[in-house]
């Protein structure tokens, strides 16, 4: 998803577009990871805005004066003003994200269950009630992560998957290959006719019910990680899922692309605050949620990315793609949270992806880092030697200095509450 910032200077979580801009008029780079404000200059070398894909809400973002960026080939809002304000709106009230660049893919056919038991690392046999969903990794035969995704079970011959934007084409091709190779005979339907809006926060569900009152009864008691489809709602064929990428309550809503702009505006009228990719990143990091392409990729085992809990080995008869490699290789590293320590009440910088972590047992690396608006600390995920554990103190190399950090269990924040402490 995120193209990782180059070593050449730019310490950003933002994608390709920023690294291209950063290549402009570079001053002499220095070891460490800062870069001049050149990166924000306009340039003819940046990917032309007309080459970028647009979600059905693109015009709505421009009308709101969003600052837009190239996110994996999509022209997406990074903020609509202050990403910190947007972050706080989600933690305290309700915010919403256009995630229509992600892809809904429907799978139909009698062998659908069998297919998913083979194709993914988590076990769809856990999905016994229509509407129940599962978070899983999609592995390659070497045990590396092709993508992380959510699978929804609607009927034994009807499943829905939502995949990441940057990996959608790769995933669909891979699913197609497994389907053909295994003779499962499924119909695999990427649904580009759907948009997705994630409404998140303690007041999110109530505001969604104001806009979609006909969904309240069926979803008031809906448990987390479950979904309900409404084929004939006032906004057409919609799906409400009690899922999210923020650590707050809320719904992720699949809605027809033709209706999403009216839907989005109706939510704004209820006081839901549009939030961009910047806030999305600080929220998910606080919530301990991985970002594909940064915390793991096809060369990384889920066992080294904090995702062992999504790999279900309990049914010894279930041969899924990548199982043999996982069982042969096991886990080689530990995936932990870090909080940068303050000295005299001040932190010495911000934790960022690719910074080196120095531990008593060897070196590790930060995979994702940021400044946490809810904690007012800099936090990160890191892959470290397996013997490092929560409670340990380590050092992070920032601009050639070794700054102290505490190792903590993830997540940092859940349902508005800070769990982790220095």
């Amino acid at each position, binding site marked *: 998803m995120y193209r990782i910032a180059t070593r050449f200077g*730019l*310490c*950003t*979580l*933002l994608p390709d577009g*920023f690294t291209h801009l950063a290549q402009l*008029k570079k*001053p*002499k780079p*220095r070891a460490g*990871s*800062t*870069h*001049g*404000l*050149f*990166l*924000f*200059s*306009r340039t003819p070398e940046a990917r032309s805005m007309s080459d970028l894909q647009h979600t059905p809400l693109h015009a709505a973002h421009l009308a709101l004066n969003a*600052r837009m960026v190239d996110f994996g080939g999509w022209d997406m809002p*990074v*903020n609509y003003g*202050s*990403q*910190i304000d947007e972050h706080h709106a989600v933690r305290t009230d309700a915010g919403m994200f256009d995630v229509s660049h992600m892809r809904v893919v429907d799978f139909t056919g009698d062998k659908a269950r069998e297919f998913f038991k083979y194709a993914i690392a988590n076990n769809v046999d856990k999905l016994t009630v229509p509407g129940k969903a599962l978070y899983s990794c999609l592995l390659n035969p070497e045990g590396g992560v092709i993508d992380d995704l959510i699978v929804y079970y609607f009927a034994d011959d009807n499943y829905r998957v939502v995949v990441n934007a940057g990996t959608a084409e790769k995933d669909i091709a891979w699913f197609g290959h497994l389907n053909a190779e295994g003779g499962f005979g499924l119909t695999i339907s990427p649904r580009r006719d759907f948009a997705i809006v994630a409404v998140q926060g303690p007041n999110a569900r109530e505001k969604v019910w104001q806009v979609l009152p006909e969904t309240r009864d069926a979803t008031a008691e809906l448990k987390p990680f479950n979904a309900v489809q409404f084929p004939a709602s006032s906004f057409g064929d919609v799906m409400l899922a009690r899922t999210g990428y923020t650590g707050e309550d809320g719904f992720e809503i699949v809605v027809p692309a033709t209706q999403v702009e009216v839907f989005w505006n109706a939510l704004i009228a209820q006081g839901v605050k549009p939030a961009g990719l*910047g806030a999305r*990143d*600080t929220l998910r990091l606080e919530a301990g949620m991985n970002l594909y392409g940064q915390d793991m990729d096809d060369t990384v085992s889920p066992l080294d990315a904090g995702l062992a809990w999504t790999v279900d080995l309990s049914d010894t008869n279930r041969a899924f793609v990548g199982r043999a490699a996982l069982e042969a290789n096991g886990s080689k590293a530990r995936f932990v949270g870090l909080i940068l320590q303050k000295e005299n009440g*001040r*932190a*010495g*910088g*911000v934790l*960022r992806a690719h910074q080196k972590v120095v531990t008593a047992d060897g070196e590790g690396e930060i995979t994702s880092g*940021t*400044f946490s*608006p809810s904690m007012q600390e*800099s936090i990160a995920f890191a892959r470290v030697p397996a013997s490092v554990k929560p409670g340990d103190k380590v050092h992070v190399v920032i*601009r050639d200095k070794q700054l102290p950090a505490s190792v903590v269990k993830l997540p940092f924040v859940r349902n508005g509450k800070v769990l982790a402490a220095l």
Partner: protein
Amino acid sequence: MSIPADLKYTESHEWVRTESDGTLTIGITDHAQEALGDVVFIELPPVGKTVAAGDAIAVIESVKAASDIYAPVSGEIVGANDALTGTPDQINGTPYESWLFKIKPAADAKTDRLIDAGAYATSIGE
């Protein structure tokens, strides 16, 4: 986009004000703060440090990016706005009041890195 006419600028998005005693006061522009996003950390040079034009001498970190700030001329650091370090987000709200550091230019310092408001506006596509 605010670009005060009475200031000078660099192409790396710093503003520069020449004081009556010849020292330069430096900060970052409105364009820069808007592009950076919410500022969460700043690191200023120590007073007394000798710098060369183009040296990276300060760091501003927003939530999403870390950026070097460069000395527009050679000289000596004669002031650093330490009060800002506790509330770095002031840079977002009042970029032209949130000065970062002051330089006493060297005797032979060249000011050719500095451009006027019109040239800066053009450089950012305004």
